[in-house]
């Protein structure tokens, strides 16, 4: 449990078992938490980085992390764990800190690995967040904004760009509703002692099975993604080889064409 009373992991077992994961799943796990990990990193280094990230999550305030997801308008429950929040935050590429609280901004910068003392003015922190955006992320963001502008111009017609009062900004953020589990007393009162107890036990067993199935599904999904990634790499290699063969063929064809041209010029008419 963290200082705010929230568990750091989505489930403590998963967090405790991350050290047993194979290297590829360890890298995926770290990347989900927002780390930039190289596939060539050694296992000890990977574990160290992930432990550092978990330690950072323990230090960060739960409400500060919630501020970030609210600012980015990611749909979450208020009771979400810090690790799940870190996963959500890792998907956020936004750099415009307008509307983000100071504590959220500091937490976001620490999660993105940007140096922050805590005594800088908020404007300086916002500017630092903007300047630390990776170059290609910036290029991609501008390109998408441009494409978005063009497509929305054709589909929705010319209109003023979405500002603070634009679409999606006016409506206040709402958290997802929490799961409501009826208490044992309610269940017994509703269904009787035996049925109520049986339902509670069945519910616990169902939860356990569901959790295990989710874990298995997650691992299968990761394996499938890994297979897909390797096949994509193989495809790229094959295409590159084919293109290289075409280029060599073209060079040979040009040489033969030049030979033919030379012969055409010097042959006796």
């Amino acid at each position: 449990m963290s200082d705010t009373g929230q568990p750091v992991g989505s489930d403590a077992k998963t967090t405790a078992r991350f050290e047993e994961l194979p290297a590829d799943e360890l890298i995926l796990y770290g990347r989900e938490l927002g780390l930039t990990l190289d596939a060539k990193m050694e296992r000890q280094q990977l574990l160290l980085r992930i432990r550092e990230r978990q330690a950072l999550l323990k230090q960060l305030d739960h409400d500060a992390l919630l501020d970030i997801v609210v600012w980015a308008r990611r749909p979450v429950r208020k009771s979400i764990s810090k690790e799940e929040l870190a996963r959500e935050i890792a998907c956020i590429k936004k750099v415009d800190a307008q509307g983000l609280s100071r504590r959220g901004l500091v937490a976001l910068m620490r999660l993105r690995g940007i140096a922050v003392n805590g005594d800088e003015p908020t404007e300086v922190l916002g500017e630092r967040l903007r300047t630390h955006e990776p170059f290609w992320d910036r290029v991609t963001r501008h390109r998408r904004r441009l494409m978005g502008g063009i497509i929305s111009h054709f589909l929705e017609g010319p209109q003023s760009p979405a500002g603070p009062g634009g679409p999606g900004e006016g409506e206040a953020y709402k958290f997802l509703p929490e799961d409501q589990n009826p208490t044992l007393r309610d269940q017994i009162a509703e269904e009787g002692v035996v049925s109520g107890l049986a339902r509670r036990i069945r519910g616990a067993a169902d939860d356990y099975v569901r959790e295990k199935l989710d874990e298995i599904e997650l691992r299968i999904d990761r394996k499938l993604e890994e297979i897909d990634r390797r096949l994509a790499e193989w495809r790229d290699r094959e295409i590159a080889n084919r293109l290289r063969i075409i280029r060599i063929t073209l060079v040979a064809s040009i040489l033969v064409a030049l030979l033919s041209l030379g012969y055409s010029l010097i042959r006796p008419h």
Partner: protein
Amino acid sequence: MPDIDIFDLWRYLLSIVVTVYVAIVTARTVWGYVVWFGSSRRYKVMGHYAVVLLLRARVRQFAGELLRIGLLLVVLGGVVALHWVLP
């Protein structure tokens, strides 16, 4: 005795032989893939996945190579055109 230029004959024969060879090999390969991917439901799914995998290839990744191929094609076209332009 007809006046036959050996070099011209070699060029025409080469172009015909190579074109026919490439057409036959390409058609045979494509037909082989079509038959193989249609041989069972499992291979049909694999075929669909292969198509999706190919469609997901990013052209930008091969932009340099494609640019060089385009330039070489232009050069080849120019050299071939010179056969008609030059006396």
